[in-house]
């Protein structure tokens, strides 16, 4: 090429001047004047000692600093082609149907960058109206359960779908008797697919199995009304609700829907409320919210029902039956019958019992009262629960005989939940081909030849018909996380139909449900549900003959009079144990006992004293042939005397969380279930013995003090008192002198009102908050150390009655004293949700040395996590004790091996909320990320924010609408109105911390005076109403 410079910087370059060529080799043509810099002005030394030390020191520190930086390299991979509809940072919402249980609530799923991060209720649903229960919220975490099967399994080894498909198809072809054991299945398309499968393999039969069975309810309605259905219950239409152990606000059939209906009729402002009476053995959340609660033994239920029946029959001219006088306190039968008769056609009697006789009595009472067709709808019935206990019993026997070739378990786990699990397991060995579709290896799956894991419902196409004419659609919100396949597709494939589930469901809907085309389908998919016009509910009267039942009820009552009886129950959240591996649910405190991570025997104080037991003792329980060892005792106020309660759903062997890493978590109580009169019985009356052992056991409780100690922090009144004086029970207000400057409150000022009249204590908000705000799970041991991290808690207080004085007793020293006449059986309960009160004069803010917690211009008390040094002074100075400290590093720490400790589980983290580090304080932020998002949205839309734009996670999830959040500076907002309501009060008003959270007095629909017993200076209100008004105003001014 030669040395041809086409472009040159100067003639030197062009000429290849030797001096230039030599200089060209140096990077810096000019040379660096380093020498000059380092040389003293007098030129004596090139670099003096001081400079040397300076540079030396700098280099050392720079190297040291650089060496400190061991931040691991993490790769962030950008989208090369941006997926349609996904904008980083902007959530997408999908309407779908909750698959946590068979209730089928309509929900919305929030996804961020293609992964679901939050579940919320679908407020547009006419049936569910926008609430979600704790289990529903937590089912999101089930999607990211690290123990879900990643591939199909054969003989407990990983296999491929091709292999298992081939083998299963062959096995099915040669099978003579095929059974599908299915949990409650409300899906019309799945039913159609099963029908198709049955057509291909005609020996197929479906066996319905539910661990918590409603067989008796269905059977009783069949016998009484000729309709084998679970009716729909209209709580909003009922003026009097009488429940016999049906925990309809917590665990019974469709709690969210029922809570919505129930709470509609419990608004004090309407000046009328439903009267809710509750008979039960264990204290349930429904019982804790009842106006009148009557503790009864399980064996008494029939007799009590019959007595009430007799009273009503006498009044309505129906035949009565002889029954001995029942020893039951408070004249409950007369009162109940009187109330029911006064609300004929507008009352509702229900029973949670799985005993056909009791359910028949209930049906008869409702029939006499004319409730069928008004509060009870047999025509627009519910599919949400099922149970055919006799069929399953027959199936087990059939298996034992070896007559069954192939069995497929869909959504059931009988090896865990069947009362005679050993018998079942033995029988299962005689079946040639066993298939389970459960998504992780559970007790049944372990025994099955093939495990063909179903998708999580958030990955699936599906539909449901929870109520006749109300259809829900389930759509995937994420592509399959693992190589799983939904049951519907498997069944179709095995039946030789290769169409995909989406097409199948769509065509089924268009042909049979919507009776319309694409547009209707798209609307249904958008809404998440479709509702056809409901049938007109017809009236009916019970046709059953009760004389036989009357005898049985009498015998049952008299023979068990002296027995200690056992009542099994399911806990809110954990239910039958299907979700036992879900750490959010394990850590959710039981709404009543406030215990988490365990089950235990609940026992009343009187009975415990008889057995010489105290809290933390460990007993061996014998019931018939079944023995359970190592059961801890929990003294439960409100528990009926001579009864004990035990929660099912614990004692799992499978699942890291469910089994407490193999160490065991609670005891399996399903072994105590029995099969009686064609149904599973969840109580036992005969042969119960308790043997105290020398062991002790500490139960993990989030609340260890049970009463309010006479402090004026829980305010309540009876409905009558409220009607006369809306501020009844709430007329003590502090006279405040402030030393503080008030904060500016221009713009927004956020606040929350909590209606204690509506709050049932269900705990849905607790899980919702954990999901929204990335609250870590701390585990059993840390709960024992009182270090739960929940940002919202529901305080539950008992009030006992002193039988001698007739006054309520809330002081520990009174009810701990054995000489006192404290009634531990009849207890009143108050639920008080508690979160950061966002005080105007926040005690936490003044004491923080580094200003890590400060007041925002919108009235929020904010935490700057990365400024916090962790002195914990703020938590000490918080009068509400709502601040939570990160005692440990809760993520990527093997000591806390929950979802924060694995990559899959961490996918549930809400990207809008910081995950807090060890050593910093945290607390409720009023979902500030939601406030900011809503403000941004309003700004983009160039409008002012309107009331309801922001809903906090707790508020959104509340089935009872007990939490109302909003802008207190907006005069039209609901919160502003509520803060002017006479029922509103703030806790610890006299300390002038000016909380932004207001509580509304609880109004109970009882005849007795409540507020009058408080310190309030209101007396003789009936005679001198005028005077009383003046009096209470004075109290306002002076107290």
């Amino acid at each position, binding site marked *: 090429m030669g040395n041809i410079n086409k472009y040159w910087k100067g003639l030197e370059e062009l000429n290849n001047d030797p001096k230039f060529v030599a200089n060209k080799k140096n990077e810096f043509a000019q040379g660096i004047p380093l020498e000059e810099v380092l040389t003293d002005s007098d030129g004596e030394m090139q670099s003096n000692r001081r400079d040397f030390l300076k540079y030396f020191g700098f280099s050392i520190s720079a190297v040291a600093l650089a060496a400190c930086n061991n931040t691991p390299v993490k790769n962030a991979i950008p989208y090369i082609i941006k997926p349609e509809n996904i904008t980083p940072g902007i959530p997408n919402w999908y309407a779908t149907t909750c698959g946590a249980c068979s209730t089928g609530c309509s929900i919305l799923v929030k996804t961020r960058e293609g992964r679901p991060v939050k579940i919320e209720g679908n407020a547009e649903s006419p049936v569910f109206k926008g609430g979600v229960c704790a289990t529903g919220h937590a089912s999101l975490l089930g999607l990211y359960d690290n123990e879900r099967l990643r591939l199909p399994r054969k003989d407990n080894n990983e296999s491929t779908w091709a292999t298992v498909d081939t083998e299963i198809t062959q096995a099915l072809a040669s099978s003579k008797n095929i059974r599908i054991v299915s949990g409650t299945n409300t899906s019309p398309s799945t039913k159609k697919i099963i029908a198709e499968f049955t057509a291909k393999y005609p020996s197929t039969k479906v066996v319905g199995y539910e661990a918590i069975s409603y067989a008796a309810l269905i059977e009783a309605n069949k016998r009484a009304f000729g309709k084998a259905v679970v009716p729909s219950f209209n709580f909003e239409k009922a003026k009097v609700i009488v429940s016999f152990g049906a925990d309809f606000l917590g665990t019974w059939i469709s709690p969210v829907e029922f809570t919505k209906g129930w709470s509609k009729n419990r608004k004090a402002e309407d000046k009328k409320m439903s009267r809710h009476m509750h008979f039960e053995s264990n204290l349930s959340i429904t019982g804790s919210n009842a106006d009148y609660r009557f503790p009864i033994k399980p064996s008494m239920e029939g007799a009590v029902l019959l007595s009430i029946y007799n009273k009503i029959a006498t009044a309505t001219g129906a035949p009565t039956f002889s029954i001995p006088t029942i020893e039951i306190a408070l004249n409950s039968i007369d009162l109940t019958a009187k109330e029911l008769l006064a609300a004929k056609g507008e009352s509702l009697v229900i029973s949670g019992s799985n005993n056909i006789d009791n359910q028949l009595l209930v049906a008869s009472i409702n029939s006499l009262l004319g409730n069928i067709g008004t509060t009870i709808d047999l025509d627009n019935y519910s599919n949400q629960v099922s149970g055919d206990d006799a069929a399953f019993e027959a199936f087990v026997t059939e298996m034992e005989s070896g007559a069954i070739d192939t069995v497929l378990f869909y959504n059931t786990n009988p090896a865990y939940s069947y009362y005679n699990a050993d018998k079942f397991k033995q029988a299962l060995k005689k079946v040639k081909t066993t298939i389970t579709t459960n998504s992780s290896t559970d007790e049944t799956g372990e025994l099955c030849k093939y495990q063909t894991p179903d998708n999580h419902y958030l990955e699936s196409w599906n539909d449901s018909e929870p109520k006749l004419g109300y259809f829900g659609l389930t759509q995937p919100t994420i592509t399959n996380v693992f190589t799983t396949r939904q049951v519907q597709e498997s069944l179709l494939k095995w039946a030789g139909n290769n169409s995909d589930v989406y097409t199948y469901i769509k065509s089924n809907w268009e042909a049979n449900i919507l009776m319309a085309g694409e547009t209707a389908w798209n609307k249904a998919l958008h809404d998440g549900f479709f509702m056809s016009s409901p049938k007109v509910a017809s009236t009916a009267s019970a046709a059953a003959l009760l004389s036989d039942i009357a005898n049985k009820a009498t015998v049952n009552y008299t023979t068990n009079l002296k027995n200690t009886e056992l009542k099994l129950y399911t806990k809110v959240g954990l239910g039958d144990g299907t979700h036992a591996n879900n750490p959010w649910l394990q850590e959710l405190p039981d709404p009543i006992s406030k215990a988490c991570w365990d089950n235990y025997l609940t026992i009343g104080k009187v009975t415990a004293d008889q057995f010489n037991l105290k809290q933390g003792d460990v007993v061996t329980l014998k019931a018939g042939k079944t023995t359970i060892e190592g059961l801890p005792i929990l003294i439960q106020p409100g528990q009926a005397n001579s009864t004990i309660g035990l929660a099912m759903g614990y004692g799992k062997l499978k699942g890291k969380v469910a089994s407490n890493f193999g160490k065991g978590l609670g005891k399996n109580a399903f072994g105590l279930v029995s099969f009686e009169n064609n149904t599973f019985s969840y109580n036992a009356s005969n042969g119960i013995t308790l043997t105290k052992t020398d062991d002790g056991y500490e139960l993990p409780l989030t609340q260890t003090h049970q009463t309010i100690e006479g402090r004026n922090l829980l305010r309540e009144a009876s409905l009558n008192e409220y009607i006369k004086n809306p501020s009844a029970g709430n007329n003590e207000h502090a006279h405040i002198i402030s030393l503080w400057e008030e904060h500016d409150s221009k713009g927004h000022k956020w606040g929350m009102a909590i209606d204690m009249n509506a709050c049932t204590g269900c705990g849905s908000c607790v899980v919702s908050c954990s999901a929204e705000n990335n609250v870590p799970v701390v585990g059993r041991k840390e709960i024992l150390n009182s270090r739960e991290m929940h940002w919202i808690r529901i305080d539950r207080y008992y009030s006992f009655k002193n039988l001698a004085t007739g006054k309520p007793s809330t002081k520990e020293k009174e009810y701990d004293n054995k000489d006192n006449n404290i009634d531990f059986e009849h207890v009143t309960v108050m639920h008080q949700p508690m979160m950061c009160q966002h005080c105007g004069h926040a005690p936490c803010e003044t004491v923080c040395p580094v200003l890590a917690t400060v007041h925002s211009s919108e009235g929020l008390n904010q935490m700057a996590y990365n400024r916090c040094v*962790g002195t914990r002074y703020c938590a000490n100075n918080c009068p509400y004790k709502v601040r939570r400290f990160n005692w440990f590093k809760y993520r990527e720490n093997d000591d806390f091996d929950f979802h924060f400790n694995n990559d899959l589980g961490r996918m549930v983290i809400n990207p809008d909320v910081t995950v807090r580090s060890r050593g910093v304080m945290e607390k409720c932020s009023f979902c500030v990320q939601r406030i900011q998002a809503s403000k941004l949205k309003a700004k983009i839309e160039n409008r002012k924010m309107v009331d309801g734009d922001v809903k906090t996670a707790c508020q959104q999830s509340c089935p009872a609408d007990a939490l109302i959040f909003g802008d207190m500076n907006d005069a039209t907002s609901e919160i502003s109105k509520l803060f002017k309501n006479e029922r509103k009060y703030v806790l610890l008003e006299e300390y002038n911390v000016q909380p932004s959270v207001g509580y509304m007095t609880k109004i109970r629909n009882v005849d007795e005076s409540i507020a009058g017993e408080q310190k309030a200076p209101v007396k003789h209100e009936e005679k001198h109403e005028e005077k009383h008004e003046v009096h209470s105003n004075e109290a306002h001014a002076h107290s």
Partner: protein
Amino acid sequence: MSYESPIRDMLITGGKTYSDITKEITRPIENKPSKAWWIGFGLSSLVLALWLFSTTYTMLVGIGAWGLNKTVGWAFDITNFVFWVGIGHAGTLISAVLLLFRQKWRMSINRSAEAMTIFAVICAASFIVSHMGRPWVAYWPIPLPNAFGSLWVNFNSPLVWDVFAISTYFSVSLVFWYVGLIPDIATVRDRAVTKARKFWYGFFAMGWNGSTRVWHRYEVISLILAAISTPLVLSVHSIVSMDFATSLVPGWHTTIFPPYFVAGAIFSGFGMVLTLLIVAREVLNYKDYITTEHLDAMCRVVMLTGTLVGLAYITEFFVAAYSGVEYEQYAFINRATGPYWWSYWIMMGCNLLAPQVFWSRWARTTPWFIFIMSIIVNIGMWFERFVIIVTSLHRDFLPSSWTMYTPTIIEFGILLGSFGLFFFFFFLFMKFLPAINMAELKSIVKTKHGLELEKHYTDLLNNNHKMANNAHDTKGDSVHGH
């Protein structure tokens, strides 16, 4: 400048000469350490190792290593902190306040009391750092100009006041102690026979030459520093008490706290001085310098301050009852009768009742008995802080959050270990520095001649007041003997 009452008993016994004092007090420095010293130092080092382990473990794992919980955010950590800060107070009181009041008896004990102050404050400071959730940012409560943005400290927070109070206290105490040491360090330097000793003591003597000029400056700076330190005796523990008093926790929110805490601090400080000196006078054979009269004087202070804190306890109860605030009332009833009743009664027993034995002169002058009492006083004062902190926090406003606090083994390790930290320094101090202020001591020592004269005058005084004038003329000898 000094006046000595001929009535008062001698402050130093044994008829020491200046030379005796120098020899005896420099003996531990110039000779190989005794067996007793090695045992003490070895034990302290072991316990210090426990402190290092427990503290390091906490830093690695998190505050969760302790028994604290959602309701009780402070317990052993701040109890220990207040306890050690309190211990320090006697040092300042002895060196500064008693200097200003010209209490000469302080001269035998002020050096070790000041050393105790410094080491106690070091222990206390260690708890400030280790109780933090993120100790690596422990410097944030200091108002340092920074590049983090507009981050500043919260001057409303008593914890920031603490930072100022403790750091001021520490620096003033350290300077005061060091200034006092200079003449003695110079003495050691002058007597040094090894090169190392000559170098190091020479270095720290800062060119002390014993001239009138340096002595003059020494006296002046001592007085100035004493004047600066004196308010610190009151301010430091007042501010520490405000950690509690400015909060709204029932049982903390009490205006009586500042004086009550100061009294408590002096009480516990003297308790600790007694513990240390009774051991030191045995181990180092300083019985002539630290006489039973010294012990007697300190016991009187202990009794006075113990009774003062007892009065405060009772006043608190009265005020709670009188306030009509049910939370306050419950907090105090709960202290005395709740689940931690035992800690309350330990406190009452040790702090109010036990010191009443010092009404008896025998009790004030019997070293082994005083030693036991001094331990009891310190146990009582530790429990006082425990009672204030834990029983107030564990049951406050909302009963739903009431819970119990149980310390873990790590917390016991840190508590015990902090004594290791303290004694580690203290044993080093006894070995390498003159444990008694030689220079000042020489100003109150009486030579043989002086003693005879004194006896003579005392007799005369007792018998005949006429001779008093004469006595005054001949007394000068004992004063200017540096």
